[in-house]
């Protein structure tokens, strides 16, 4: 099975984000970047599918769009076990919306004819949760979102031994899950937490040095590369503390609390 995993480089979770001088973007200079968390789970799912598969020709390809620094994250994905990578080079990711990014990815993915495309559910920076779904639409493939687990099952009645169908576990609200079957090729967006992630190893990093990273220029693969989003202004969330102390006897305080939970916060 040929699996493509679309990954994104995002500021490290611990990063102290500051607004750039022009107020339209974040200060990138001293930021540390890391692999988007749910993309890490998408990669793990792909690696496990390849490892579990009996077919020897399984391949995991990672694809990422972004500037030069994205190369670091691509290397890490190769170190964890991906076979090769495609880097869609573009410096204007911020001015492309989810549709724009999906167009870039779709153009790069199409010639590969993958059996499966995995992406993380959403990115930790913008959190739009759209790119994977739009990507499926652009590729004309069926999709499912919020996936915790993917299993390859042999297509019923088919002659060949290569699994052509998928059984996936979706996360629903309130602790409910849904299991559905899909044909391949398909696009799945993966939820965090479905697997245990593997750690990066020294051997993996050394082996990654010899793996192929194909670079594609954004302008070359997508005719429509005009920015569609203009950033007007970025601000940090305003911190405000609004603690209310409920006085009186414990009984009165409890009554006041119930009152507030019922009619102000409306959670009861």
């Amino acid at each position, binding site marked *: 099975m040929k699996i493509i995993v679309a990954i994104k480089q995002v500021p490290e979770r*611990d990063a102290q984000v500051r607004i750039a001088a022009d107020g339209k973007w974040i200060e990138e200079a001293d930021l540390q970047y890391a692999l988007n968390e749910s993309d890490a789970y998408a990669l793990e799912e792909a690696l496990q599918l390849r490892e579990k598969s009996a077919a020897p020709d399984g391949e995991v390809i990672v694809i990422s769009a972004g500037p030069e620094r994205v190369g670091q994250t691509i290397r890490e994905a190769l170190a964890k076990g991906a076979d090769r990578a495609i880097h869609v080079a573009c410096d204007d990711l911020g001015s492309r919306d989810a549709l724009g990014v999906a167009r870039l990815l779709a153009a790069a993915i199409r010639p590969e004819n993958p059996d499966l495309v995995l992406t993380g559910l959403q990115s930790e920076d913008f959190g739009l949760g759209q790119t994977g779904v739009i990507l499926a639409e652009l590729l004309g493939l069926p999709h499912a979102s919020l996936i915790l687990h993917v299993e390859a099952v042999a297509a019923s009645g088919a002659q060949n031994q290569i699994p052509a169908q998928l059984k996936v576990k979706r996360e629903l609200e309130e602790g409910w899950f849904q299991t559905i079957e899909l044909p391949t090729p398909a696009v799945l967006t993966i939820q965090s937490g479905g697997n245990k992630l593997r750690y990066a190893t020294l051997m993996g990093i050394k082996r990654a040095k010899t793996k192929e990273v194909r670079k594609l220029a954004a302008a070359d693969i997508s005719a429509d590369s005009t920015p569609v989003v203009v950033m007007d202004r970025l601000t940090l969330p305003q911190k405000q503390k609004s603690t209310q102390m409920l006085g009186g006897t414990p009984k009165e305080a409890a009554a006041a609390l119930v009152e507030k939970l019922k009619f102000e916060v409306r959670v009861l």
Partner: protein
Amino acid sequence: MIAILPTLAEPQSFSLPEKLLFAVLALASLYSFWNRFGKILNKILHSKKDAGFHLFPIGTRIWDFFWEVLCQAKVVRERPLPGLAHAFVFWAFCAFALVTLNHCAVAFGIGFLNPEGQFGRLYFYLAAAFAFACAAGILGLFIRRFLVRPQWLGEQLSYQSGVIALLIFVLMATYMAALFVTDNASVRILWWVHTLTLLTFLPLIPHSKHLHLVLSPATVFLSRGGFAQIPPLADDEDFGLVAGTDLTQLVSLQAYACVECGRCTEHCPAADTGKLLNPKEIILGVRAYLNNVGPASDQPLLGEYNSQEAVFQCTTCGACEFQCPVGIEHVPILVGLRRGAVNTGAWEDEQGAKLFLALERGSNALGISPAERDKFIEKQALPIFDGTQEYCLWLGCMGGYDPKGREIVAAFARVMNFLGTSYGVMRKEKCTGDPVRRLGNDLLFQQLAEANLEALAQNKVKKIVTICPHCVRTIQEDWKQYGTPPAVEHHSEFIARFAYKLPTQSTGESIVFHDPCYLGRYRNVYEEPRTVAALAGNLVEAPRNKERSFCCGAGGGLAFLGEEKGERVSHNRAAELVATGAQTIAAACPFCNTMFRDALAATGDSAPQLLDISQLVARGLPR
């Protein structure tokens, strides 16, 4: 006076058949010795070269050789009675080198020590004195091994050792007897019994643990230098001890030098609390691998001959390495095996992977947001390091994120404020990499070390002081592979230096100090924390103290792994500290502190209070 004593009797002449018989037997004995020893030597020499090994500075090597081999200092110090018995056997062997050469030369009429001459007479009597001590010593060791039977010698009796003891005894007895007989027949019989014993003994050496006679002097002399030193990886294809091809010459030499005395096992916190790990068996596992598989093989070292589970139970406390009388460096071997498993991804452990991922993506081993560290710094009003202060106060993961560790930092900050020290904390700090270094994750360790070295250089930090001995060790020794770390010291050393400026508390409180492994054995700092703790009360000692201190169970990254098997190491040690009857347990490491906090909670309400030495001092400062 010496002239009136009897002389050593030697046969005056040998017939040709006698000479031929001796020559044939001697050659057979030498051949049998070399047949085995040559193979062992070959395996050692065909192992990989040790990366980062330097013979210099040679002075310390000569000193170690003199002190540990010639003086038998370590052998005697750690087990005085059997140690002394062993020392007499060893010194007798040294004295007998000349006697034995002469003994063999006599057969061909070319003896060079004249029993009638001044020197010969003197030397033979000197040797006789050693022979007596040796015979007494070996008899004592025989009684210990076969009648007293201490448990760390293993359940199975080593009959080989019995045979060797008998041979040594016969060697000494026949020598001493030769001083008292005069008739030719008896003299000849004694000479032949002595000779045959000698020729039987020689081939037994490489076939048994008595190989340490030959190898341990080399092992002591050729140590890696420093305690528990983790060597650098040789090249891009070196991932630690994965297979036979990764065994280095030092590892192989040490594996063959093991004398199976079991001192390592006796002091091992894992072995003592019913875990699988037995450091002696690890070394013997490597030896068995070398014997059966060899240093050219790709077969994994972990599996048939050593267990991965056991290797990851090591707290890297270094008690084994500290105790070893033949110079085996257990910690680099255990960490080497872990490196082999982790660097190739063969180690799968839920908690371990969680720790690695927390440090791949975040800054601290506890996996907490650094915003929490910022809040703590703000709340404690700790000054930020800006390049103008003398010291950088390194918080470490425990000091920055653990509630108890923060209390220690706060107390130490009070002490420094009282002393008027200029210090500051870094805005950003990553884990020094101690737990991942000891667990064998070289990739992550390098990333953490390099990021920290860069940040410290940018901030122009010259001196670091920290509450954590693990940070001290990692910064000072382990970071060296990736740059030049600033000077670093532990807060016990800092406070002890200014102890004269600090108030003494006449409380009469009894305090037992627990030596952290990474401060004691790793850094050789024993007195400073005691000086500090003594400011607050009267010190008492636990049975296992200083060099023999027993681990809290947290080291080697184990604080971050899952539940222990068997008894908890921390409970074992806490019970010992409680049994001293001290009102207060003084710790000097945030990891020990957190381990004992949990262990003491399990002992009930009567538990003594647990404080870091800085908290003891801060208590006596004016508010």
